[in-house]
């Protein structure tokens, strides 16, 4: 499974882990390093570094009983489990942050539209039990919440296709080109980061692509087996958009009302301008896809380069205006300040770049 969880080495986490470890090892003489590491969700190296520290620990005010724990690299032996009184090795109650972290995550996953009902029920049962066991420590967990968005029907079909290893046919909307295309894809995994995406091998482009579920206009599970080539799954913790170094550069200057661009578009740099605006430099494989952005920005910003992109936005705006010549001009308030904006903000389908790898909108 890809996307190694974030696990910083710090004294707090290590202490927390070692306290659980002594309880766990006490019950399991000769436990295998491999099994313990898996049960604790850590690497064998991390476990071994804990096993290096434990023999330095004990309740020495009783007269120097350090924990006599050692390992031959394969199994772990604790030669003096009595060094800790039976009750000093009992499982510890959950801390407020621990209860919050686990409960908020479990509740969030349980709300994923399209999740299998059996999974949802298991999450809800587990959540209720942890709440009860955590007692007061669970209280603060209501102060954090997370919603994952997903299209339930599409999610369920993708989930089924993955578990049955079958190919999918989809009609997919690509905002960069404002077009809906048909593709056959071999799904690899479902990723929820705010929105839910399916990562898949796209048979049309013969490449790995990420599709946002709410842009799937239609979906069918095919009878053909899914056969994605072995691909290394990316760690998505840095975000779904990872522009390549060789992608062309786009420079955008925005006024104060266009600062949101820096929040939605991954960029190389965003320099403050004297008027409270920003000069933003970003990279995209297909600069033409940013015409949408130029149009949306209106008077809140402009494309500095490439010139061709700035021209195409101007051209599109002129063409669009021409259509209004035929309609009565009443109500057109030339130069008037638009009152509708507490800030231009991308709407649901907005602000996306090329194809499917550019996922950055709301």
């Amino acid at each position, binding site marked *: 499974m890809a*996307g190694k969880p*974030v*696990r*910083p080495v710090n*004294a*707090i*986490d290590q*202490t927390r882990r*070692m*306290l659980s*470890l002594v309880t*766990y090892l006490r019950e399991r003489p000769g436990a295998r390093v491999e099994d313990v590491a898996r*049960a*604790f*969700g850590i690497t064998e190296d991390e476990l071994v570094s804990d096993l290096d520290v434990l023999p330095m*620990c004990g*309740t*020495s*005010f009783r007269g120097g009983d350090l924990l006599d724990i050692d390992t031959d690299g394969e199994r772990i032996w604790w030669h003096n489990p009595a060094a800790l*009184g039976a*009750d000093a090795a009992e499982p*510890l109650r*959950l801390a407020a942050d*621990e*209860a919050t*972290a*686990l409960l908020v*995550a479990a509740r*969030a996953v349980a709300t994923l539209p399209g999740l*299998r009902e059996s999974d949802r029920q298991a999450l809800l*049962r587990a959540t209720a039990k*942890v709440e009860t*066991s955590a007692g007061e420590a669970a209280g603060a967990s209501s102060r*954090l*919440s997370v*919603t*994952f968005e997903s299209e339930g029907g599409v999610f369920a079909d993708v989930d089924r296709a*993955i*578990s049955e290893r079958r190919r999918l046919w989809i009609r997919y909307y690509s*905002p960069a080109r*404002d077009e809906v295309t048909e593709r056959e894809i071999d799904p690899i995994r479902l990723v*929820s980061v*705010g929105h839910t995406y399916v990562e898949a091998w796209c048979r049309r482009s013969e490449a790995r692509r990420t599709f946002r579920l709410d842009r799937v206009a239609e979906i069918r599970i095919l009878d053909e087996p899914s056969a994605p080539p072995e691909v290394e799954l990316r760690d*998505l913790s840095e975000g779904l958009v990872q522009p390549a170094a060789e992608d062309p550069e786009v420079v955008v200057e925005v006024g104060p009302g266009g600062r*949101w661009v820096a929040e939605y578009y991954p960029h190389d740099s965003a320099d403050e301008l004297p008027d409270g605006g920003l000069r933003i430099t970003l990279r995209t494989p297909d600069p033409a896809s940013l015409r949408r952005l130029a*149009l949306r920005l*209106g*008077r809140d910003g402009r494309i500095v380069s490439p010139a061709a992109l700035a021209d195409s936005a*101007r051209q599109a705006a*002129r063409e*669009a*205006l021409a259509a209004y010549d035929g*309609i009565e001009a009443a109500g*057109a308030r030339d130069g008037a300040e638009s009152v*509708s*904006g507490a800030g231009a*903000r991308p*709407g*649901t389908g907005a602000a996306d770049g090329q194809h499917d790898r550019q996922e950055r909108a*709301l």
Partner: protein
Amino acid sequence: MAIAKAERLMNLALCLLGTRRPLSKRELRESVEAYLEAGSDDSFNRMFERDKDDLRELGLVIETVESLDGEIGYLARRDSNRLPPITLDAEEAAALGLAAKVWQQARLAGAASGALQKLRAAGLPEDVDPYEAHSALEPRIPVHEAAFEPLMLACRDRRPVVFEYRKANAAQPEPRHVEPWALECWRGHWYLAGFDRDRGAERVFRLSRITGKVRSRGSRFTAPVPDVVTVRETVASWAGETADRSALIRLRTGAGYPLRAKATGVRELGDGWDELEIPYGHGLDAWLVEFGPDVVVLEPAELRADVVDRLRAVAKG
């Protein structure tokens, strides 16, 4: 070589958990090797206070008891530190295993793993992973905002905060004094709801617009905390998802799929154009302009004027 902090914390924890009577600071200092090496009383005292705080963060309930002769003693009673019995089946264990991997924020990722490890130590069934498909589902909670951790702690401890906040259209940030109630993540972005002391009312803040440090104030909350804090509804209305009117547009055939998906009515005009009725909420003008010459606004006049304004700005640009 200095003794590692984890070793010091572990020794202090084991001493406090293992004792049946309160241990004085002096006794603890003699029991933990790192404290013997601490040098001056001052540096020991600072270290000891920090360590107690750290262990309390880990959930250890440490009691302070004053003896008859006025000496302070410390202990972690087993009754107050024992995990109440909890029995989870394999499916529930797998569900929690999935949940524990969701956080991408260091502190909460560590806390979630720690919770799972405590439950493992208490006998949580191990990875039988009854659904193979679980490995193909990866929910992730992104946290890119630096303000998240201090605000999370302030919400938890109900501490007022002050931070610099730049409103959507503002060039300069302004200080805001807030009693933080709750944080919510929607569509991958974090928002804070709380009582804005300067405005005397509830406000929702987007964390990415907080600049600089979040500082906490020593004072207490002055306004009552509502039972239910609704962040998402407020943010959804910012995003224009609470439409109260409708608009009539012409859309080129084959273009603008998301507009069609939202349309409440579609009429084919037969000349390469369709006529759509769509919900009209905040921000619709900016969205329609994105479609350039493929969209023509028919009604209402106000929306048409806004779109024309925007197009003129781009055409001049």
